[in-house]
């Protein structure tokens, strides 16, 4: 297998008494698209959000185990959470623009990380909007409120916003599920074009989407890692009976 970018070791996550992830150990390869699949409530989003420590914000959560990103344990006490999150771009399920202009949405991240020069910010904004395939649509109205964009445009704006802090990893939490088919397809294409530069980890409950995009598959069931490997192998001949059943659509 390729060089792992994220290495999860014995990860356990508890929400109060409910164990959302049970002893998960898995490697996520660099600059590939890895899809986390599995039925609702299996811990997909929990696993994804443990990569950027957004899971810390959940009340009453207990986390044990290690997650190495580029060899560094992001759960070690001396790690700066904001630095961890800066390296992990998030594309949420629902596009969630910040209450500011299109320009400021993209510039928000670089600004809080200390970039003040106007020309530099202009450049970042333009570059990231380009990468997110939104530049042509918004270049004449960068000062307009982000909330005036269509849902699909908003999601691409969120992608541009995430790219602006120069992350190494993109985390996508069912990022196309709230979009219309055309917008969803655009976002999928963008993800494919970005995988050369970023490690992409996506959660999806749409198997066809995983087939279209993923290089690697992680199958979770009831908080346990059931099977994991190259997408082709998992889809063609899954070893575990539960994976087989899920892929055949016996349950979803």
């Amino acid at each position, binding site marked *: 297998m390729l060089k792992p970018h994220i290495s999860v070791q014995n990860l356990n996550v508890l929400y109060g008494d409910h164990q959302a992830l049970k002893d998960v150990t898995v490697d996520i390869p660099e600059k590939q698209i890895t899809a986390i699949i599995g039925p609702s409530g299996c811990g997909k989003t929990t696993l994804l959000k443990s990569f*950027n420590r*957004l899971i810390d*914000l959940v*009340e009453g959560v207990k986390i044990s185990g290690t997650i190495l990103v580029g060899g560094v344990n992001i759960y070690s006490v001396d790690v700066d959470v*904001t*630095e*961890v*999150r*800066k390296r*992990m*771009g*998030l594309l*949420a399920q*629902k596009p*969630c*623009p*910040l*209450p*500011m*202009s299109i320009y400021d949405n993209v510039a*928000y*991240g670089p600004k*809080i*990380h200390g970039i003040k020069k106007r020309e530099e910010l202009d450049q970042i904004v333009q570059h990231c909007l380009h990468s997110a395939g939104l530049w042509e649509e918004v270049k004449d109205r960068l000062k307009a*409120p*982000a*909330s005036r964009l269509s849902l699909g445009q908003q999601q691409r704006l*969120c992608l541009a*916003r*995430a790219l*602006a*802090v120069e992350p190494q990893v993109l985390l996508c939490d069912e990022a196309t599920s709230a979009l219309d088919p055309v917008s969803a397809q655009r976002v999928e294409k963008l993800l494919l074009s970005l995988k050369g530069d970023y490690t992409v980890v996506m959660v999806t409950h749409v198997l066809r989407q995983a087939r279209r995009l993923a290089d690697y598959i992680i199958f979770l069931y009831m908080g346990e890692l059931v099977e994991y490997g190259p997408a082709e192998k998992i889809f063609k001949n899954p070893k575990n009976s539960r994976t087989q059943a899920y892929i055949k659509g016996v349950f979803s």
Partner: protein
Amino acid sequence: MDRRKLEEAIFKGLMFCSIFLVVGSLLTIIGVVLIKGLPALSIQMLTQIPQGGYYLGKEGGILNAIVGSLYLAGGATALAFVISLPVALYIEEYAGRSKLADFARLSLDVLWSVPSIVFGAFGFAIMTFLGMRASLLGGIVTVALLILPIMVRAMDEVVRMISFELKESSYALGATKFETVVKVVVRQALPGILTAVLLAFGRGIGDAASVLFTAGYTDRIPSSLFDPVATLPLAILFQLGTPFPEVQNRAYASAVVLTVIILTLSIVSRLLTKKLTKYVVR
């Protein structure tokens, strides 16, 4: 008729009556104030301070009370705002569901229901203790205390409505809690924050009991924070209390002025809100 349809009709009728009562009483109040106040209202009344004649003026105007009220309510609103916003943000965003936050909310609710005369008496007691006279400063502090719970609770409600996903978007970019609260939460809550400020201002400018002993009353326009200050509600109170019908009519004119100030502020702030909140995500 079918029993369920009858039920529906009766209930609709009852609701309509209630609404009629609410709208009707508002219109009646405004109507009475206008009918009785407008004839007594004159340019002189708006531009001059009281001039002799009967107590509180047969001659001259109520400029002292207009300016005084604006100073006092403006000052109190500004002071209350400076305290309220951090309190509201803290109990929502930092304290969360902790005991401290619950206790703060309970305290504010209790404060809210304390009658304004009690705030007045409390302010007066403190001022006596400090050896202060009735003054603009005393009035500002007392009224700020009076409107503080209104402002905080109103802000608290809007800050709570902000979706977790929005804050998450900010955290995911590596923002700290402070950055998220100041740059995202406050912006998103801006319309509600402005409403809270306006609500508090309206309550502050309209209250008589809390300023009676703390701000005092005077014929003049205060020139420092330590001068006593006249207010419109007290002007109305004193004018109505005189045995002279002419002066009593001036009380209604003062009421018109007070009502117009509040209405103007509501309208201006509505327009302002639209402009300021262009970027809010709905």
